[in-house]
């Protein structure tokens, strides 16, 4: 039985199709973590001295989720672009530095299946700064040149400072601590 196609061009065309499908499958695996929506839960019971308005609550939820989505993209694909907007000040500098160092070392990190339990612990009297505690759970994969060298489910506690910008809340400080 002859398994070869009738013409070489059709054979190579078929191979190309298979390669594209394989590439898409591989890509979908690679993007699986990045595509998983970041889940954020916000507790305002401890916030004070200023009361948190409902619009502020929605803004914090929206912008914190966006910030972690952006950070995950930046650290997975080693590009600083997603960091423009959601981060400012020292948090942005740290992340930009991490991306630059990863580009140099050939490492990357993937933050998958993120779940954040946020507790607002301070909201300034004039509403110009909010401090939050985030108990973050995620699947952390570290890759060296595309090869996964570490895969771990982690729970990390972060102290977060957010300030209102022109159209969003931005993260100014993101500092991991052993415990609150």
């Amino acid at each position: 039985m002859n398994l070869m196609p009738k013409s070489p061009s059709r054979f190579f065309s078929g191979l190309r199709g298979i390669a594209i499908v394989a590439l898409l499958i591989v890509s979908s695996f690679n993007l699986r973590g990045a595509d998983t929506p970041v889940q954020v839960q916000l507790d305002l019971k401890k916030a004070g001295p200023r009361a948190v308005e409902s619009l502020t609550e929605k803004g914090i939820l929206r912008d914190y989720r966006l910030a972690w989505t952006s950070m995950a993209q930046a650290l997975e694909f080693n590009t600083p672009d997603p960091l423009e907007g959601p981060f400012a000040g020292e948090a942005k500098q740290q992340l930009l530095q991490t991306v630059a160092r990863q580009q140099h070392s050939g490492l990357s990190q993937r933050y998958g299946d993120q779940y954040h339990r946020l507790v607002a612990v301070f909201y300034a009297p004039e509403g110009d700064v909010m401090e939050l505690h985030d108990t973050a759970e995620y699947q952390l994969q570290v890759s060296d040149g595309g090869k996964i060298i570490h895969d771990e489910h982690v729970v990390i506690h972060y102290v977060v400072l957010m300030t209102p910008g022109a159209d969003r809340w931005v993260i100014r400080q993101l500092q991991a601590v052993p415990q609150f």
Partner: protein
Amino acid sequence: MHRTVLICAALGLAGGSVSLCSAQDFRVPASAVAGVEASIPTTGRGKATFYLLGPGVSLKSDVNLGEEVHLHSQDLRYAGSYLALVCSSSCKNARFYVTEAKPASLTFLVHPSRVPVSQSDAVSGVALAFDKFHNEVLTPVAVNFQLTAGTASLFSRQVRTQDGVAWFRTASGKSAGGLQVVASLDDLSARRAVQQVASEPCNLRIEGQRTAIGIAVETEPVHDCAGNVVPDGTIVTFTATEGNSRSTVDAPIKKGIARAQISGPGEASISVASGVVMGNELRIGAKP
């Protein structure tokens, strides 16, 4: 010290099975301080790859097992969680935390920049301490807040930071003028200025007389209830009622007095107001 056990890998080599006992152990610092170098001792034999991932750092280097891995101070300048990996035949990991160094700067937010006198809870301030690498200092520290107007102390309080934050809220003073607001922590201090201005006018009174072209009215010097001169630019509204007609003039205070010229030949009743404060009413007779 956290201890991580690395298991020996048995590899089949030509001529027989050889046990390559690579790394058995490496220890990450139990406590590390931002900007202070540290070391990670390893045990075992052979070569391995060492990785360090943390805030602002992504390191990869070849190491000899059995030797210490030196972590430079600039690689540990940010407080946070660090992941160390040692990979030979397999990878082992350990996590450690770097804590902030001692306070080196104060961020001090004060509101508002301009405040009426004698208002309760009108002035507030928030202080956050940071170390020289801009890590937030989360260890509780005592911050002193002081408010002074001229040489008079209006408010003084020591507040211990909670979650890295200390704050206050207090009333504004009784006199218009500059208010110095200072937050200090050991030898660090941050100074802000708040301008205290007169509050709403008090006892607003006007006087007027008929002139050749109408009625000239002006206020007496406008003060608030504490005697502070109401600032220039504050709007005073004069309303003249003449029979069934009514006219209004808004005039800004200049050097403590607001003036207006109202046209109309008949007898007029003139009232004055500024904000929510009403003044006296004046009756001016008709033009002779």
